[in-house]
């Protein structure tokens, strides 16, 4: 996998349809390799040079070339970026010429891997880059950038420092029994550990945000049969995915539709029409619909004002009274029972619309966008959220050990120190670091020691 003088190359941009293409080359000797394709040499690092790519006596392209001298480069080794004209054929043939000169095509993620191996990134940062590239909405992407910049690594280091500080107190007491080092009291331990536990819990909880965002925000659409749920959904999706029909009860099961709104991944559930039914299949469907309504984060509750209010509708309104929802009075083009419904929903904020004429749809859409503001789902106090289950497991272990220490009473300091060393190891593993001689440094800087 790793070879001596191994130079790797890859096309960094999409090869289809882009006007500019970038080819990256990394590894010792890449400067000479690329220079052998150019009309003039590359003089200094970090300057961009306008050069011609020459093959034989033919000019292939006019390009901008930037040389990054390791370790000051993304991978930490010598690197070249060639900015050429885009398009599949052009980018590709420049890339192939580089391969011909002795570079090999990079494996997936190999540039980042090299950056990690060369100490340019810690494990979290490397994983975050991967998350950034793969993130499917802008909030996840923003978060990956924060993680990449080390915000989480720093938080873990802070936690580790707090643990090291407690260990230092314990070890100082153990190793300097005749100095003026005070015994570590249970109150002191409990206070410090509780702070650590609550910090970790915040981190663990932040993972829920990630799950919510990556799984999608759930929006359920409910109402009695034939109220126009599928039509509304179609209007939202602006494409015919759900079956729109006038026969009551066709949407017995739950259909899911994914959509990006405000950068959020949103999943719409079209639920079965709710009515008291004797049909077994339909009964199951209704039960599941109620479940889905409960699990959803936003409910769109629809009423058909062209027919009279049913018991089920009253019941549904009652059952969902605490739910975050948008109430829609549909079919306002046939406003037979408008007054009755308005009375029914008088305490609830509601909209009237007609899916047939599209009257009121814009207002509905505006309201939908307001309800799906990212700030409604992400606590503004949260600077970032954890986006990798690997960290959660380690953090939970650390948390459990801290709780265990608090629960135990009257135990000698070396037991507590041993447990805490375990937590320190757990935290170090998250950032991919191994043991360092950090406890003694802390002891010496904190205590006046020495007989």
């Amino acid at each position, binding site marked *: 996998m*790793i070879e001596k003088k191994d130079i790797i190359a890859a096309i960094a941009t999409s090869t289809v349809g882009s006007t500019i293409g970038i080819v990256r080359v990394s590894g010792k000797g890449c400067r000479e390799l690329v220079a052998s394709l150019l009309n003039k040499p590359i003089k200094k690092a970090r300057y961009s040079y306008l050069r011609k790519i020459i093959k034989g006596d033919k000019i292939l392209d006019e390009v901008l070339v930037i040389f990054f001298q390791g370790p000051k480069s993304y991978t930490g080794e010598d690197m070249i970026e060639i900015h050429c004209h885009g398009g599949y054929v052009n980018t590709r043939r420049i890339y192939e010429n580089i391969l011909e000169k002795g570079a090999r095509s990079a494996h997936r993620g190999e540039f980042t891997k090299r950056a990690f191996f060369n100490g340019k990134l810690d494990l979290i940062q490397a994983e975050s880059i991967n998350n950034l590239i793969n993130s499917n909405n802008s909030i996840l992407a923003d978060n990956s950038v924060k993680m990449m910049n080390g915000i989480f690594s720093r938080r873990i280091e802070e936690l580790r420092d707090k643990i090291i500080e407690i260990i230092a107190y314990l070890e100082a007491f153990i190793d*300097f029994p*005749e100095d*003026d080092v005070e015994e570590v009291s249970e109150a002191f331990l409990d206070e410090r550990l509780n702070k650590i536990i609550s910090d970790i819990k915040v981190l663990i909880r932040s993972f829920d945000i990630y799950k919510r965002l990556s799984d999608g925000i759930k929006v359920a659409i409910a109402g009695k049969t034939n109220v126009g749920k599928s039509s509304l959904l179609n209007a939202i999706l602006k494409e015919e995915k759900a079956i729109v029909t006038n026969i009551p009860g066709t949407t017995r099961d739950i259909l899911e539709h994914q959509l990006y709104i405000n950068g959020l991944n949103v999943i719409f559930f079209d639920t079965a029409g709710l009515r008291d039914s004797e049909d077994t299949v339909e009964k199951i469907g209704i039960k599941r619909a109620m479940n889905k309504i409960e699990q959803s984060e936003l409910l769109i509750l629809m009423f058909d004002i062209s027919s009279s209010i049913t018991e089920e509708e009253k019941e549904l309104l009652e059952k969902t009274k605490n739910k975050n929802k948008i109430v829609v009075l549909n079919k306002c083009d046939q406003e037979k029972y408008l007054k009755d419904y308005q009375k029914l929903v008088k305490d609830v904020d509601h909209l009237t619309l007609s899916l047939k004429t599209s009257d009121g749809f814009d207002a509905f859409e505006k309201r939908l966008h307001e309800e799906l503001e990212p700030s409604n789902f992400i606590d503004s106090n949260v600077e970032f959220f954890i986006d990798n289950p690997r960290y959660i497991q380690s953090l939970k272990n650390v948390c459990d050990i801290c709780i265990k220490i608090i629960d135990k009473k009257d135990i000698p300091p070396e037991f507590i120190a041993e447990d805490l060393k375990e937590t320190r190891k757990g935290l170090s593993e998250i950032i991919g*670091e*191994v043991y360092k*001689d950090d406890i*003694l440094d802390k002891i010496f800087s904190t205590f*006046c020691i020495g007989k």
Partner: protein
Amino acid sequence: MKSFFSADVIVIGGGHAGIEAAYVAAKGGAKTILITINLDTIGETPCNPSIGGPGKSQIVREIDALGGLMPKVSDMCAIQRRMINTKGGPAVHSLRFQVDRDKYRKTMKNTLEKVKNLYIKQGKVSDLLVEGNGIVGVKLNTGAEFYAENVIITAGTFLKGKIHIGDFSQKAGRYGEPGSFSLAKAISKLGISLNRLKTGTTPRLDSKTIDFSSLREQPSENIIHGFSLWKTPNWLSGRSCYVTRTNEEIHRIIEKNIDRSPLFSGKIKGIGPRYCPSIEDKVFRFEKDSHKIFLEPEGLFTDEIYMQGFSTSLPEDIQHKIIRLIPGLENVHIYKPGYAVEYDCIDSRELKKTLEHASIKGLYFAGQVNGTSGYEEAAGQGLIAGINALMKVQKRKEFILDRTRSYIGTLIDDLTLKGTNEPYRMFTSRMDYRMMVRQDNAHLRLCEKAYEAGVISQDQYKEYKERTFRISKTLKYMEKNIKKGKTLKQLLKTPGKKLEDIIKIKDFDLDDNDIITVESEIKYEGYILKLKKDQELNKKWREVRLPEDIDYMDINHISIEARQKLIKARPDTIGDIERIPGINSSDITGIIIYLRKNGHKDIN
């Protein structure tokens, strides 16, 4: 001048490292010469005559298990005996003795004099004789030459030693003793790099001028087992220590005169130990109104009192002024002022784990010259260097202690892999497996290996076997027998329960140390199992030996800095790499990938 003597092993220096090295080599059958500047300072304790303490008592017990001298002689000379750290469990209990300085010295010298094969010689080594890449002997400043293919240097603080008291400084290894300048030169001539360190000691006081009546007394305790478990000790009469404190007035005077301290005026360049700061350091670095001082007797036939906690290199007039402000010392007379000493030490990363120099065959270094501090650390290294020289003479395999199974192993592993930029002292917190590696079980851990190397006798081995048998028999009994629905083992795990509450000690013939071992093994069981699992877990990787000719510069997927550190530390195994400062797990991954790529047989 032509040589009149050749031997198997030459030891330079008669301090704690030199004593153990010479003793074990000679006892094992190697013809050994110990060369010292002064016969009468063999076994000198230039700082306080105290042996043991946290991290150190464990080393002394290990020396005992390996057949060394320090434990036996300490027991014979102890005048204050205490078990400290008893607020913690047995893993951190530490024996600490004050010994009678004169008696210790005389006992050491006389013990060595009686050893067959050991020849003590007063003289000063001025040059090292090297042929090719191996040592062949030493030359004295008189011109006499002594030949041996194994030379152990235990120069203590003598290499380019220089002492400081205020503005006064003088070339000296210790106060009143000459330093070794030509030897330092001979060492650097071999291409061995030298660093500068600093340490210090306290003033010595005249006991008849001290008013002890106002001070807190710390009496000697009733201790059953000494450092040596081979022999029931015959204790000398006990002496007390006394505790007093500095005060703010003293601190103000120190602050006012700080520019007269060579530590602060920039005169001293060597790096001192952080755990043993001078009183000037303490006042400057820590906001405290008062610092503790122990007044310790130096022997039964002397009135000299050591001022533990008051190491200083302030000028004598200031020393005099501030000491007289300490409660109990209002009218004190100072026998000897405190002083700082600067000295050269080698970069211990140049040594192999046998303490042999990596590029000069047969040349060993042990003790303070390797950058450590403390008599115990020095003795432990001396013993290992001595055993390895002996092994070489007898053409047997290297003697290396595992860091996970001994304090001495940890000490040498740290020195050879990490090196040190301050005088290195052992602490229990340096031990990765503290619950398993304790002072009570040193014999259980090391005697098998000691016997294999031939450094303990047949009788001692038998005694060790009996000890192992008694303990394992008790442990088994406690696991199998049930009382009140619980095994005896479970009962002992209850906090506060002692072994004597559960079984009749007599029936199992356990001595006091065995009781501690049984209690520890049971009370720490959960942790011990976890540590053992951890040992096993990464064994597969950790024990993979690195090729001797590995070219770190060739591994281009780890940082240049990491490559340079690896070249300096010369790790033997992948496990070693983990402990090199500044090397992270991605570097280790990089090395593993490189080794696999290059067809290492143990990695697939």
